[in-house]
């Protein structure tokens, strides 16, 4: 399996965490690329290698039947400065290496909770479905081995690591990714990027009813924004009013045309250009994008992005 979908997930999560971190500690920044590893045991050890200890370890697990989550490791000296920035009185006064007070730990835990919530939102966006998280577990780890044990216990098959600089110390975000996410992500990514340019119909298939829909336009937005769209809000699509409308046949971008209104008021599409008859010998795509919801087997204008739902009855890909 390619690491590309995993790294894409890691990137979007790292971006979200960086923004949330800068909200509580201006100047915090992500450092370097996301690194993917496989197998909680080995990858977990690599993921914590070189980390300064003792460090605050914030772990947020996914709920909803999947194992995995995000772990953020922040060395205590950075944690103390972060707590001071957040307004914990006297936090900066304690010497380097001193133990964190309960309120300092709570402040850092809250910062991490906000980061992890942002991470979960980003993950929801990539997967195309909401990801639920449990309250954060905050503890202080005193050795690398102890941090590695947290990761090992997750038994996550994929481990993504990326570094941050927070309050002059090097911190680390470790994403523990369950297989279920990789499967969903493959589907979501595929349906976003695949443009089918061939007509896969053979003679034996000509009698099979297919779903046909017209697409007026598309938009992208954060999952949270879409959930909060009030009635009466306006979503800007990527098309002008004069632009042709795309016709899809069973996931195949088949033709473009113009919308018309029939005498009885129903919408029609007048095909202007058939684009899908290129090389007809190419294989049928394994995962065709599903049609818009509540679509009968007849042409219909769809205002939504037909590929918006990653759920597909087709078989699960091997990962």
């Amino acid at each position, binding site marked *: 399996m390619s690491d590309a979908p995993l790294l894409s997930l890691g990137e979007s999560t790292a971006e*979200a965490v960086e923004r*949330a971190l800068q*909200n*509580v500690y201006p100047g915090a920044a992500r450092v370097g690329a996301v690194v993917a590893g496989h197998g909680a045991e080995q990858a977990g050890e690599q993921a914590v290698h070189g980390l300064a200890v003792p460090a605050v370890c914030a772990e947020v697990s996914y709920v909803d039947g999947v194992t995995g989550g995000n772990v953020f490791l922040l060395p205590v000296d950075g944690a103390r400065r972060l*707590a001071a920035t*957040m*307004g*914990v009185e006297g936090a900066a006064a304690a010497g380097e290496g001193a133990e964190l007070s*309960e*309120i300092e730990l*709570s*402040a850092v*835990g*809250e910062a991490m*909770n*906000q980061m*992890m*919530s*942002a*991470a*979960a*939102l980003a993950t*929801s966006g990539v997967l195309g479905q*909401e990801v639920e*998280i*449990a*309250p*954060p577990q905050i503890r202080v780890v005193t050795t690398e081995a102890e941090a590695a044990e947290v990761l090992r216990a997750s038994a996550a098959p994929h481990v993504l690591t990326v570094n941050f600089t927070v309050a002059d110390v090097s911190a680390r975000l470790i994403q523990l990714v369950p297989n279920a996410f990789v499967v969903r992500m493959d589907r979501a990514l595929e349906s976003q990027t695949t443009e089918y340019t061939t007509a896969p119909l053979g003679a034996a298939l000509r009698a099979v009813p297919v779903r046909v829909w017209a697409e007026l336009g598309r938009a992208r937005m954060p*999952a*949270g924004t879409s*959930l*909060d769209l009030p009635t009466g809000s306006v979503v800007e699509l990527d098309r002008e009013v004069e632009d042709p409308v795309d016709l899809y046949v069973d996931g195949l971008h088949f033709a473009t045309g113009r919308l018309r209104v029939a005498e009885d008021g129903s919408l029609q599409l007048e095909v202007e250009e058939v684009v899908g008859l290129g090389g007809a010998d190419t294989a049928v795509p394994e995962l065709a994008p599903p049609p818009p919801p509540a679509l009968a087997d007849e042409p219909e204008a769809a205002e939504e992005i037909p590929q918006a739902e990653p759920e597909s009855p087709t078989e699960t890909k091997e990962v």
Partner: protein
Amino acid sequence: MARVLVVDDAAFMRKMVSDVLLGGGHEVVGEAGDGVEAVERYLELRPEVTTLDITMPEKDGLSALREIIELDPTARVVMCSALGQESKVLESIKLGAKDFVVKPFQADRVLGAVEKALA
């Protein structure tokens, strides 16, 4: 000025919210660290306004909100949630919360939400 119950699993956040409320002339009559405690303290203290975190151990903020509204349909509850729990916030407004504040928050946003809940 209102009598307020502050609910959050992070002691730090309870302190932050309490400081803001005190600064705005309100009285913090109690605090709770999870949803179970929130319902208990609500019944015991009958605050005019309750601030409620969403992601909490034992019982989350939404379940606590549902119970509080069931027990007292006139309860004024302001949700406090981190970004990323926004859909939950939407759900909580449907359940009867008066407003929501997204963390990290500004002091006047918290005070504004409490004023709004009292109105």
